[in-house]
């Protein structure tokens, strides 16, 4: 289990989707998501997703891996709270 911050973009249907950095441009990362991911929080202010991912999930460009403690520093009580 790993925790990641993934930037978010709005797709053509208006859905806020996890994104990745492709040469300085944010593009959809939906096809890169494996099964077993849970959204802990969608932070519309950043905007970004805080995701709980299985270990086989790759860390895409633009994503930041965080520990549970670091997530809880940014979002008190979000992990294990």
């Amino acid at each position, binding site marked *: 289990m790993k925790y990641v911050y993934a930037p978010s973009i*709005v*797709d053509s*249907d*208006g*859905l*806020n*989707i*996890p994104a990745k950095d492709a040469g300085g441009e944010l593009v959809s990362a*939906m*096809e890169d*998501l*494996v*099964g*077993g*991911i*849970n*959204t802990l929080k*969608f932070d519309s202010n950043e905007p970004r*997703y805080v995701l709980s991912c299985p270990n086989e999930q790759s860390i895409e460009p633009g994503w930041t891996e965080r520990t549970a403690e670091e997530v809880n520093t940014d979002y008190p009580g979000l992990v294990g709270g």
Partner: protein
Amino acid sequence: MAVSWSWAFGLEDVATLEDMGWFYHVSGSTREPQTGADKVYSYPAFPGTKYSWASGPVRDFNFPAAPFVPTGSVAVAVKADTSWYQSNAIQIIGAMEGAGTRGCRMYCSNTASNTITCVVGDVVAGTFTLTPDDWHYLSINYDISTTTWDATFWANGAQVASGSNSGRNANTTGYYRTGGFSTILALNAQIIVYDSGTTASDAAAPMYCTRLTPNADTSETGTWAPSVGVTNIGVTAGDPLDTATFTQEATPSSGDNVVTEVNNLVAQLGLTAGIVRGATNHTYSSGTAVQAFASVKDSGGVYVDGDTITPDVADTTYAWATTATGLTGTSTIDCKYEIV
């Protein structure tokens, strides 16, 4: 706990289903009932023939809007032949708002990895994987009745995601959308809608939904004349719905009704069911200057009436009622149609 609506697909075609309130978004390709061991969601003891709705890629559809509940659960049995169709626009199952374009839904986000994404409003709630070529029992427990939507997503009895999304429409209407979710053939066997009194885990527990055929006339008030033969079941219990046969009250007055029954439940199911969560009576009628409703009960219980409808002469009008009270694996189920 209460089932509020249930449906098992039979031999009705697109035109008939559309007349009953279904909506098909795209024409062409395969859109038909199919049967066969690998096409139906059933159990070994079932003595009859089951059917599933088979749809080609992107041939998605809506169930009738009338049975939609803004707070509750929807459970379906689905199977994707060969591979899932990857598209945000094609729902494996979605509980969609009536006034807008959002919903609580599951769709395939990666065909190669069989990844299914769960969405609440405009936020991704999570992902899970689902094998093609297998039957899966999917359920969404949702509340889209307020401006903050909540949902939990379930696959084969286990929770796979949950989420919330604020700033949405508070809905009183909506519809369930599915179909077209395979690159080859998408199969939908059944749908069960539960009210808000049902826990998410109960609604997610896999259940078979089986189409029953009334096998005896129970009673009638007024004078009902079968279009052919001498029994009401002889003209109303057909599968599929056939508008060419019917029973008719020529001079209807308030309170006139016709009741048929299923008194051989064990024989029709091929077993004594351990749990019977509900029974839905589906009726279709036409008429002039009348209103009517469907009703259903366990023979030892009290009728549960459905919403009143106004049939016309141009086509048939769908009316339904569901009871979840008193039913057991050996119940006699009374199905009534009554003039208001």
